[in-house]
Structure formats: structure tokens, C-alpha cells
């Protein structure tokens, strides 16, 4: 009796330890980045502490300020660059998400419900491109984009993102439609509703969880992209945060407080998604990876 109690207690303790380990591993670096972003510059060189002794918002002020001080000297504000890059990140990631989800929602419906020659071949060809890494097509794509005058334009970046993330969204949406009973649509057709009307007003509302999951995956992928904009967004006309942030390292001396403050900004959208939409995110990941 006693030994069973002890072993169950030990088991519970082990489980708690494992949970704590997982929490520290996943959240620790993010938390540390946040602590760094509110620690005064000089304290960064002292002993690490769980919470800064004199929390400050000066790194954030530096991001937003018109001018800023760095080691006692007034330096040029980073706000013009930072705000432009933030806007670029928002525009390209949102644009790519909208186009991808709309095209995938319509396309996957055609691949599931409409009959046309070459349907399955088309679908499998598109999905097979998931196995083609981006860099294999990047060099010819670079020359193609130059000849189309799409380098450093929102349209060019969004198109490349769509071509990269569409296969996964199509894959997800097709499995969503396949799981839906066709009887609902047939009932609507009998009532005289057209195909498009049925798709928009009956099928899509039911497919909402799938649409949200596809949107989340596309947005996160686009938001975190680095190599594509590194090549295709040479100037602040379209340069996103992910490309601007590392430039903070090389241009000035390495200002870790500023970098972490900017980094915290860049992780706000993903963190919000994890907080409020984690159900859809996880189901999308599972469906995308296992089917």
C-alpha cells in the first residue's frame, strides 16, 4: 500500500518535472528576450536576473523615437526603417494569406467536387511541389522577376509566397471538403441554388475551421520568411522585419536591447495566434503533416 502510494507520488512528481522542463524549454528563450528588452543597457552587462532591477522602456523608445541616444551620442532614429519594415511585413504576409486562402478554397473545391479532365494529375502535380525546396527555383525566379519588373514589389513577393504556400493550403482544404457530406450541397442544388452560391453560402461557412487553419499556417510561414525577401526585397520598398532586424547587428555596434525589443515586436502576431487560435493551428499542423 505504502509503496504504491510512494510510486504514484513519484510518478506525479516526474510528470510535473517534465511539464516544467517543457515550459522552460519553450518559453524560456522568449521570456529572456523580453527581460532583455526591458533591461537598461548597462545592466545587460551585469549578472543576469529573473526580473530586471530597474525595468525600462528605453529600448522601445529607441524604436519609436524621432532621435535616440546610444552610448551618450545622438544617433539617427531607426523608426523610419522599422515602421516601413513592419508595414511591409504586415502587407506581404496578409496579402499572401488572403490570395492563398481564396485560391485554395476555390481550387480545392474544384479538385473535390467538380469533374474535369486531368483533375487528379493537376492536384498531385501541385502538391508534389511541396517536395521542391524554395532555393532550387530561386535563381531562375530571380531573373524572371527582374524581366517582369516584379523585384522589390508587393505583387512579386506575394506571388512568390502564394506559389510556395498554396500546395499546403490546397492539401488542407481538399481534406476538409472530402470530409463534408455532399448531401447538404445536393439539397441546395435541388432548391435551385447554383454551384457558386452553394460554395459561398453553404460549403465555405462549414469549412471555416479549415479556412482559418490554412490562413494561420500561410500567415505564419509568410511572416517568418527570410531567404525569399533577402533576395527579392533589396530595399525598404518591400523589405520586411525579418530582413531588417539582422541589419541592426551589422550596421551599428550590436545593440542587444534594441534587437530584442524589435524581436518582441516581430513575435506579437504569432503569439496572438497561439493565444487565441491555437485550436485551429494545431489541427492544421496535424492535418498538414499527417494525411
Amino acid at each position, binding site marked *: 500500500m505504502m509503496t504504491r502510494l510512494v510510486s504514484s507520488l513519484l510518478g506525479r512528481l516526474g510528470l510535473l518535472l*517534465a511539464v516544467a522542463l517543457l515550459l522552460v524549454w519553450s518559453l524560456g528563450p*522568449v521570456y529572456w528576450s523580453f527581460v*532583455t528588452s526591458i533591461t537598461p543597457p548597462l545592466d545587460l552587462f551585469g549578472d543576469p536576473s529573473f526580473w530586471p532591477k530597474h525595468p525600462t522602456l528605453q529600448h522601445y523608445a529607441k524604436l519609436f523615437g524621432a532621435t535616440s541616444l546610444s552610448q551618450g551620442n545622438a544617433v539617427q532614429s531607426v523608426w523610419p526603417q522599422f515602421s516601413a519594415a513592419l508595414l511591409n511585413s504586415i502587407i506581404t504576409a496578409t496579402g499572401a494569406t488572403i490570395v492563398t486562402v481564396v485560391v485554395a478554397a476555390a481550387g480545392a473545391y474544384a479538385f473535390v467536387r467538380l469533374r474535369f479532365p486531368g483533375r487528379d494529375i493537376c492536384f498531385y502535380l501541385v502538391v508534389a511541389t511541396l517536395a521542391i525546396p524554395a532555393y*532550387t527555383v530561386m535563381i531562375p525566379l530571380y531573373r*524572371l522577376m527582374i524581366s517582369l519588373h516584379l523585384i522589390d514589389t508587393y505583387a512579386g513577393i506575394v506571388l512568390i509566397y502564394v506559389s510556395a504556400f498554396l500546395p499546403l493550403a490546397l492539401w488542407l482544404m481538399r481534406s476538409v471538403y472530402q470530409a463534408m457530406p455532399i448531401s447538404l450541397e445536393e439539397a441546395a442544388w435541388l432548391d435551385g441554388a447554383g454551384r457558386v452560391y452553394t460554395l459561398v453560402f453553404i460549403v465555405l461557412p462549414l469549412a471555416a475551421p479549415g479556412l482559418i487553419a490554412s490562413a494561420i499556417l500561410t500567415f505564419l510561414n509568410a511572416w517568418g520568411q527570410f531567404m525569399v525577401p533577402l*533576395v527579392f526585397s533589396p530595399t525598404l520598398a518591400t523589405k520586411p*522585419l525579418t530582413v531588417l532586424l539582422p541589419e541592426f547587428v551589422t550596421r551599428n555596434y550590436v545593440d542587444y536591447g534594441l534587437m530584442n525589443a524589435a524581436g518582441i515586436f516581430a513575435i506579437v502576431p*504569432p503569439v496572438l495566434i497561439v493565444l487565441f487560435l491555437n485550436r485551429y493551428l494545431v489541427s492544421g*499542423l496535424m492535418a498538414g503533416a499527417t494525411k
Partner: protein
Amino acid sequence: MTRSTFKADEMALAAVFVVPILVIMGGLVFYPLAVSTVDSFYRVDPMRPDTPFVGFANYARLLTDSSVQASWFNTLSYVAFAVVLETVGGLGAALLLNRIRHGRRWLLAVTVLPWCLPPVVNAIVWMWIFNPSYGLLNKVLIGLGLIAHNKVWFNDQATALFLISLVHVWRMMPLTAVILLAALQSIPGDLYEAARLDGAGPVKCFRLVTLPLIAGGLAIALSQSTVFAFNLFDEAWILAGSSLDTRSVIIQVYLTAFQSMRLSSGMALSILAMIGSLVVSLIYVLKVYRETRFD
């Protein structure tokens, strides 16, 4: 199905829905892929006139180029570190999540978080942790008495490769965990019941019930880890730039094509990298499928 069974209005709608996909994927993936393949047999270099056919010369030069060889070694190291750590860690996390009853949804959300963050930001966050003078890693290890004084982590190639892999693992392990958790949840509970009645302990249960039944998920997770580690770029580029000690094959492609402007050489290397990543992941899938068929 004969051609006459396709209805005209259905075909028209399908054309509206599918043609945009074919245009985007054809123009931005299949066409460039074909160009990459063909041009890798020519000399395409904006600095030099003409684009003569050179056969396998680009490929042959890649085999003898010492930077390329170094980058293959680095990439294979990343793959080895990442696959092992992600599989072990991901399996551990999945088993834990599968046992948790209360608050599983939130623990899962926390587990998935690193995957959601931009890799560049992850790399910057870890770069500060690895900082030789003020980084958390040195301070924690000194505090624990494991090292005597600050270490410059990226001075040693093996350590640098391991730490870059670690940042990559931090981001990609959630994917392995999620895939394996999905596989674990599809195992019917009465199988464990039966195994326990037959006197199997937890370890035997795991080996005889869990492992064979998650083999499919494991194969997917392994090939995902491999492909992503094979394509590692962001973490190594942010943490160590073009350093030859940590340069991955993809960084080598980027440098060859976009900094040296030797386009055809870059394309040849990118084709080799694609084939490499496809073959390695195919091996896992085939191996796991073969092994589970006998069980």
C-alpha cells in the same frame, strides 16, 4: 469515365477555379525548376559573354570545390544533430502531452509556440544567449560550476554546429511532437489494456504497442526533420554569416548565385541539394514502411 460525362458548366467553373493555380504554380515553380535543371548544364554568368553548353562541368567542379565539400559536411552535421534531438525530444513531449489530462490544450499551445516564431527572431534571441561576454549560457554554466570562465562558443566548429542545430531544433521540435501526438492519439486504449493483462510493463508496452503503431507518424516526422535540417539557412546565416565552419549547402547556393553571381553553378548545387534531401527522406519512409510490414 468518358469525355462526354464532363458537363460544360462544371468544366467552365473548374477552369475559373483551377487555371489561376496552374498559372501560378506553372510560372513560379515548374518553369523555374525546368530552367534550373537545363541551365545547370550551361555556363550562365552575367560577368561573362555567351552561355555555352558545358555538360556536367558545373557538377564536376562542385565535387572538387573545397567550400562546397565543407558545406556538405556542415549540412550533414545539422541533419544528424537535428534529427536525433528533434525525434527524442519530440517523442518525449508527445508522450507527456498524451498523458496530461488537465490543461493539455495550453501545454500544447506553449509547445507549438517556437515553431510559430520567425526563425530570424529565434536566431537573434539565441545569439544573445550565446554571447561570449554577457550571454546567459556562459553565466548559467559558470553559476553551475560546469565551466570556469567565459567561452567563445563559435570559435570551435563542432560547438558552433551543435548550437546552430540547437536553435533549429528549438523551432522544429514542436512539429515532430505534434505529428507523434496525433499518432499516439490514434492508438486504441484497449490495446494497452490487453498488453497489461498479458503482464507487459510500461517499457514492454511502449516497445510492443506504442512504437509499432506510431511507426507511420515517426516516418513522417523523421522525413520532415531531415528535409528542414537539410534546408537550414536562416539560423546559420544570422548566427555565423558566411563562415566556412558553419556554412550550410543552401548558404553556399546563396553565396554562389547571389554574391559571386555564378548562376549556373548555384543552380547545379541547388539541384544536387534537392535530390539529396528527397533521397534521404525517401530512405526513411521506405525503411520504416518495410520494418512495420513485418510486425
